């Protein structure tokens, strides 16, 4: 099976600054990979590269079979990935349901997909009618997750997915990740919540080299993944 992500000597510049300096990375389809590393190591940049938001200046980057330097490939790729970043991308003046509906429909999601995503994230009912500006940080995170889930991406790119969530929310993330993988998706996540994230991942990849990442090493997870909460 074709790897979901294949980077060879990938260099990404932010201005003149090499945020990624020659990265090699392989992620197999259906795998859950954790990116580990200190602040500024380039984890977020790596996720943004995989999402097609950044380009490679040197080297090659093939994600879901799309060769990233090509603009058409980038646009085709973006329809197939979901990125949960630090920013939520939500519109404060719209309700939770309006946001999920908009981002879902933008990706061609059906009404059932959107309703299912809201229900899976515990946002159906009255919470769906609340304006995003009135949500707590955790509820905003859940809404972002629902937007991502409605898109039904083939590659989930999760940047600190457990941040700002309570215990139920963290269990929800883990459950959604396992459900996504069970349905054939691939997950790459970056996290500082190592105990939980390592337990979730099939494989741990260390992004090293500070802001000028120079290499990646791989290793097995610290312990087997535990049972996670089932999400309807």
């Amino acid at each position, binding site marked *: 099976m074709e790897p979901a992500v294949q980077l060879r000597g990938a260099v990404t510049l932010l201005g003149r600054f090499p945020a990624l300096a020659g990265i090699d990375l392989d992620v197999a389809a259906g795998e859950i990979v954790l990116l580990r590393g200190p602040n500024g190591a380039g984890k977020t940049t790596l996720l*943004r590269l995989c*999402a*097609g*938001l950044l380009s490679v200046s040197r080297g090659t980057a093939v994600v879901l079979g799309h060769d990233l330097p090509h*603009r058409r490939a980038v646009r085709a790729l*973006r*329809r197939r*990935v*979901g*990125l949960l*970043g*630090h*920013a*939520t*991308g*939500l*519109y*404060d*003046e*719209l309700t939770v349901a*309006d946001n999920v509906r*908009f*981002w879902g*429909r*933008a*990706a*061609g999601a059906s009404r059932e997909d959107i309703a299912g995503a809201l229900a899976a994230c515990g946002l159906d009912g009255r919470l769906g009618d609340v*304006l995003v500006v009135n949500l707590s940080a955790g509820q905003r995170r859940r809404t972002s997750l629902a937007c991502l889930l409605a*898109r039904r991406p083939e590659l989930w790119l999760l940047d600190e997915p457990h941040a700002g969530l309570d215990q139920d929310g963290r269990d929800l993330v883990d459950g959604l990740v396992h459900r996504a993988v069970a349905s054939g998706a691939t997950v790459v996540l970056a996290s500082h919540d190592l105990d939980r994230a390592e337990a979730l991942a099939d494989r741990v990849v260390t992004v090293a080299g500070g802001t000028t990442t120079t290499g990646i090493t791989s290793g097995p997870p610290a312990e087997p993944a535990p049972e996670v909460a089932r999400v309807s």
Partner: protein
Amino acid sequence: MFRDASLMAGKDLRIELRSRVTLQQVLPFAVLVLILFGIALDPDRGVLGRASGGLFWVTVLFCALLAIQRAFTIEAADGGRDALRLSGLDPAGIFLGKAAAIAAQLVAVEVLLAAGVVIMYGTEVTGVPLLLATCLAATAGLAAAGTLYGVLAAGLRVRETLLPILLLPVLTPVLIGATKAFEAALGGVAADGWPWCGLLLVFALLYLTFGTLAFGTLLEES
């Protein structure tokens, strides 16, 4: 493309309906500007009547700046721009949708301003077909050019101050053409106004075409 445009326009208009920025800020601003022109030129009501077309369109231009700023401020908040790039929406659809939403807000402004000009400046409305055609063509041009320059400025830190400097010179043909057409319709010879209306239409078509083609690149690069 048109499905995406409809989705985008619906979203932007829903945000405006919920936030009421157009209703509670842009429309009162438009009336305020009309009143200020009236105060400044009141000693000679004849001037107000003769200049009503130009005053109307200068006020529309100011309101267009506010609407365009607003249209891109909502996308700049909390990573909205990246989300838009990742959304899978056709960039041409995003452009047309945002332009349509801005145009809808400008039409509301123009209706209110028309009433204001008639009531406050004592302008007699004649040549209604030319007035309506001018409003439609000029509004389409303002919205299309505004959306294009809006996304260009949106990626910059100084966008609030830069947008008027970039946009107002570009919109000068709209101001001239729409004012001339209004002057012809309001007391002049209506037939003299139609060529100006044609110019506005050409301007609108040019920017709609260019925006449809270039918006994706500007969204990515700016």
